[in-house]
């Protein structure tokens, strides 16, 4: 087997006296589409931040694309940062730049892309993310929530990432937009071979796209597998999580 894309070994995190992760192990291979779920405060977003090098874990090691994130020097880190993209929960677009300029930031800063190719590449990224081209001329504050998220994906895709991290990509979106987003992620994974890791609470997303689901609980991986395996789990939180879904879908039938 080739080297895993992400490898967490014995990761421990605490905020003051509150233990978030304890001895957390997780391995993700190339081309996987993995959804991370878990109750509030189980450290899903914290884990993402530790993998991308925004927050140092208190114990353990994090390897991303073969580099130990927390032992790497500045040059290794900046080389590594060109190889993954991250989409933050509310987009985190730079509010002083137009959408097109936002997408162009990584292209310009990398100094890899010749100037005359920047504009066509920005247009391609916008189209890939499903945005109309004239959205590129707008400022982030003029976009709806769904379009902001698409613009954020376009920026995250700018430099052909090998791995894409997404923090709650479908939260706050209507179901139709959310499903379109799911298809987008699916095609990124299948057509372009990008490894996709998302933190989500959206059960529909889980059911439609996730090949593999990782459940965090009590500071470690509580369950890991495909949808059927997870649903067969007898972990009380997981049972409650999926039964909330059955209740919700059951109600209209009872009412009608």
């Amino acid at each position, binding site marked *: 087997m080739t080297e895993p894309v992400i490898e967490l070994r014995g990761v421990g995190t605490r905020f003051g006296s509150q233990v978030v992760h304890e001895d957390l192990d997780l391995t993700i291979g190339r081309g996987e589409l993995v959804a991370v779920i878990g109750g509030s405060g189980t450290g899903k977003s914290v884990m993402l931040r530790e993998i991308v090098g925004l927050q140092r874990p208190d114990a353990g090691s994090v390897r991303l694309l073969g580099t130990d994130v927390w032992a790497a020097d500045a040059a290794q880190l900046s080389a590594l940062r060109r190889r993954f993209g991250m989409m933050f929960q509310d987009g985190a677009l730079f*509010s002083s730049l137009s959408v097109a300029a936002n997408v162009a930031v990584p292209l310009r800063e990398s100094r*890899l892309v010749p100037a005359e*190719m920047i504009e*066509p590449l920005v247009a*391609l990224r916008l189209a890939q993310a499903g945005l109309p081209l*004239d959205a*590129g001329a707008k400022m982030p504050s003029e976009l709806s929530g769904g379009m902001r998220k698409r613009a954020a994906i376009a920026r995250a895709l700018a430099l052909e990432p090998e791995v894409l991290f997404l923090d709650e990509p479908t939260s706050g979106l209507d179901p139709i937009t959310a499903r379109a987003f799911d298809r987008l992620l699916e095609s990124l994974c299948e057509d372009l071979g990008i490894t996709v890791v998302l933190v989500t609470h959206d059960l529909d997303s889980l059911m439609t796209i996730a090949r593999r689901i990782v459940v965090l609980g009590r500071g470690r991986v509580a369950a890991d597998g495909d949808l059927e395996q997870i649903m067969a789990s007898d972990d009380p939180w997981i049972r409650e999580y999926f039964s909330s879904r059955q209740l919700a879908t059951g109600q209209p039938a009872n009412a009608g």
Partner: protein
Amino acid sequence: MTQDACRIGVDSGRPVLELAGDWRLARLPELARALREARAPSRQPAGFDRSSLAAIDGTDLSALDTAAALQLCRWLRAGGSDPSSIELLGFEQGHERVLRLVARTSDGQDESDARPPARRGALAALGASTIAMLDMLRGHVGFLGYVLVEIGRALVDPKQLRFGELLTQLSRVCVSAVPVVALVTCLIGLVFAYLLGLQAEQYGANIFVVDGVALGMTREFSPMIVAVIVAGRSGAAFAAQLGTMRLNEETDAIAVLGLSVAQVLVVPRVLALVLTMPLLVFVGNVAGLAGAAAIADLMLDVTPSTFVSRLHDALAPRHVLIGLAKAPFFALLIAVIGCRMGMTGPRDTRTIGTHTTSTVVQGIVGVIVIDAIFAILMQRIGW
């Protein structure tokens, strides 16, 4: 190994573009050069022109990403071929998917659509900013009326007034401003007395320094300096606080809870500043005169007791009163501008920054304008 990234070859009598090696974003400049050279007449296979390109051969292709695929698609379109329908030979499945995807998504795009509209000319920009300034001024006047009505409402029905918030604001805008106000006015009084003293000494008129400093400090300098400090401290703070609360939808939450944003946020801030600015000016008067008395004692042989008795004779109470009377007007201007700049504009982080800066600038300019109006009025009534 120096294999060409691409060349036009012949395959069963047809011209075929043969790709080789890594086609990745990091190699875009090289790939562009290779594509340009492939089209050079000297390298075309005899008897064919580039528009009749029949297929692309990807057998030797080891990697293809979307950026490189986009460059290829653009090159093909420029040469009159359609990248979505051209025949692909020997492509790996993954590479073919990438190329087809890019061909599809980049089809019929006009990249200039994503460009922000062109900048205006200098004259149009001047006109636009003038209109924007007048609009802003009109908005300020409207907001002033709104705030006065709300203050009136709070005075008529004191239950509406938020005493807790008012006390918090009083402490923030007044009590914590005392040290900086005292320090700055004391230093100004010191420098002012020193400069006046240099002139007065030449005529042996040391004692008249007291007259000059007392009049200048109480009537003009102290109110002005306090207003500048308050515009920088409290005006900016109002704009930033309210702007952040609005960005965070806290102001909407207040409105939805059935509370009045004006009563909860704006009135306490405006009242606090209007009530306390005269106090700060008084602090400034005392500190400024104390600074002047210190210099007079050290350099001009005017003892503190002489200074005070001369102050009694030379300083008419009206000068102090005029200085104190200006303060609430300055305060109202600064507070209204600060609150309005926090409550208007697009809800993004950049606006908070620009509006905070703008609050300070507008506050200081406005204070100077009001001061000039006061000076003219006072001169007319002979005070």
